[in-house]
């Protein structure tokens, strides 16, 4: 039963795993950094399959057998090409970010703590999904509703894009609905476990991606600590189980910066990682409107980081490969927005030159939004930024030259995203208070996994911090060293 339930996702997952293996780190295709590749492959699989399903609906309309046959042919053809490309794969013997080995006892203790944090998180996720199998209100009115129309609509599948079903965001894109509808179409049934499973995959692969990538960039201990912090963020688990699109968007934002960091580490061995970053950015835009806003921010962040370091030519070459991954998905997004979506989001549609300038020049809006942002920053996540700050002061920080560009890209992207979200609060037509109450938590959630990733990229690893009179001590800082 479980195999038949998972069958629809297995072909795209296998294909995506090949892609992650081709572009991913390590000398071995499958064994090296297995968790990292699996996490990337899950996001790619859901993104790619939602696109193929949507394109199939547009071209041929709803036909279960047609979909299965055409997708199978496409996936087999793509897998053949990938197998051919894999023969030419250059081995990249990545070096672990931390030169200090961690004691076995400490590693076992951290692994045990991760398990202790993982079990209640998984259990809670399952119970939340059982108590609300159709998801919370936005899942009912946007994501799963659209999935039902796509899967049940037959020739009238476009009915869900009429004014009757519009909310304030009629142009929300279709990665989640199309992934769920495709899965249901394959099964020929609509079990509520499917949207819950999609939500679970996104929630736990976000945590796995942060932990496994930090395990590569810094150390295994560092990765485990990041995983524990994310598992100890109750809102991540609760919101993930609500079947909203914020956690999936957070996954794609994190996956994009991880792909850029991997590209920096690979030092030219894996140009495909830039295409992967482009794909992940495209999938962010295909998940939620905030993802569209993420595209120019990533491009700008790379410009600010790459041009001063390596010049315009290097930036241009990088962007060409990035665009090769981004454009196919972006084409689908624009096709949907321009020809199918019944209108624009109210937050965009309700802007006018006069009203927007009025809002921008109203100081009280800045004060209200600023206060809300700072309060949220102090308390968000359960460990929260305040706790992370104390941890940073106790452990110290270290900048690794190999990760400098990746670190800067992540930091600039995060800063620009936060600034952009802040400005949305200033120009919102719904009122600042309403926007704070209804969306601030969710917007933070989109950025929280990336913020945790950035933090652990910066803070010293336990291994580094524990070394007395470490040779690395000259490279890093701690509170006591600063005081001394």
């Amino acid at each position: 039963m479980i195999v038949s339930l998972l069958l629809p996702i297995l072909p795209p997952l296998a294909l995506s795993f090949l892609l992650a293996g081709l572009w991913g780190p390590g000398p071995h295709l499958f064994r090296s950094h297995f968790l990292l590749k699996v996490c990337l492959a899950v996001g790619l699989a859901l993104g790619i399959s939602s696109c193929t399903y949507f394109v199939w609906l547009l071209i041929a309309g709803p036909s279960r057998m047609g979909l299965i046959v055409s997708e199978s042919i496409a996936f087999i053809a793509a897998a053949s090409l990938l197998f051919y490309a894999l023969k030419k794969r250059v081995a990249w013997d990545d070096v672990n970010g931390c030169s200090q080995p961690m004691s076995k006892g400490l590693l076992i203790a951290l692994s045990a703590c991760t398990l202790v944090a993982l079990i209640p998180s998984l259990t809670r996720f399952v119970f939340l999904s059982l108590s609300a199998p159709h998801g919370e209100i936005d899942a009912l009115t946007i994501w799963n509703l659209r999935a039902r129309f796509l899967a049940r609509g037959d020739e009238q599948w476009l009915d869900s894009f009429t004014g009757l079903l519009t909310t304030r965001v009629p142009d929300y894109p279709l990665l989640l609905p199309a992934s769920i509808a495709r899965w249901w179409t394959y099964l020929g049934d609509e079990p509520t476990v499917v949207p819950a499973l999609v939500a679970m995959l996104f929630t736990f692969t976000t945590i796995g991606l942060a932990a496994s990538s930090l395990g590569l960039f810094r150390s295994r201990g560092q990765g485990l600590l990041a995983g524990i912090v994310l598992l100890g963020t109750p809102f991540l688990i609760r919101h993930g189980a609500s079947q909203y699109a914020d956690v999936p968007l957070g996954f794609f934002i994190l996956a994009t910066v991880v792909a850029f960091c991997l590209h920096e580490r690979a030092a030219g061995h894996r140009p495909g990682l830039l295409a992967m970053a482009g794909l992940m950015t495209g999938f962010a835009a295909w998940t939620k409107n905030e993802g569209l806003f993420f595209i120019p921010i990533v491009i700008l962040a790379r410009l600010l980081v790459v041009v001063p370091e390596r010049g315009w030519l290097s930036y241009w070459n990088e962007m060409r490969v990035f665009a090769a991954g981004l454009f196919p998905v972006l084409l689908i997004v624009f096709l949907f927005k321009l020809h199918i979506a019944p209108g624009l989001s109210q937050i965009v549609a309700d802007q006018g030159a006069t009203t927007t300038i009025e809002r921008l020049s109203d100081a009280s809006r800045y004060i209200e939004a600023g206060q809300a942002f700072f309060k949220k920053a102090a308390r968000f996540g359960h460990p929260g930024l305040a706790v992370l700050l104390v941890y940073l002061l106790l452990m110290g920080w270290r900048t690794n030259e190999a990760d400098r560009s990746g670190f800067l890209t992540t930091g600039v992207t995060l800063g620009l995203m936060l600034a952009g979200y802040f400005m949305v609060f200033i120009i919102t037509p719904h009122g600042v208070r309403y926007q704070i109450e209804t969306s601030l938590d969710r917007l933070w959630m989109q950025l929280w996994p990336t913020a945790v990733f950035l933090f652990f990229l910066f803070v010293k690893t336990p291994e580094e911090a524990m070394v007395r009179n470490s040779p690395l001590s000259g490279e890093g800082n701690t509170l006591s060293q600063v005081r001394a």
Partner: protein
Amino acid sequence: MTSALSSILKRATIVSPFVGMLFLLLVSLFSTIKLTKPTEQFASRFAGITEIVPDNVTLHERRVSGLRTLLPPHGTVGYATDDDAGYARYEKYLTIRYVLAPILVEDSPHVALVVGNFTQPATDPQQFLRQRNLTLIKDLGQGVLLLEGAPR
């Protein structure tokens, strides 16, 4: 004095990573304890296990399941309810819209076929229908009615 301070700081440098990790682990693991609360509630709710109470949406889905055979597979139907205006009413409308998909549900009684959703015990359905020019086609029980819509 300076050497004593320096010695304290040196020790602090050695101890602080352990303190830092312990602090982070305790705070994170403590917050995961919070995660177990709904599980306990869920377990205690079903400790006596007499029946598993389905969620609200599933209940609505069961209530209106009889409508499926009476409604066309596609198209638009209206919606009439005795709920007071407000968010609770809107939420019920959204749920009906979700459970009847892919039929479009317009929040208006001026459509040829109208789904009646009655949840207030004090409501007199006959009077309600008369006031809104609606005609009963079929009473499916549990407050679910299929109605002929009022002309616009």
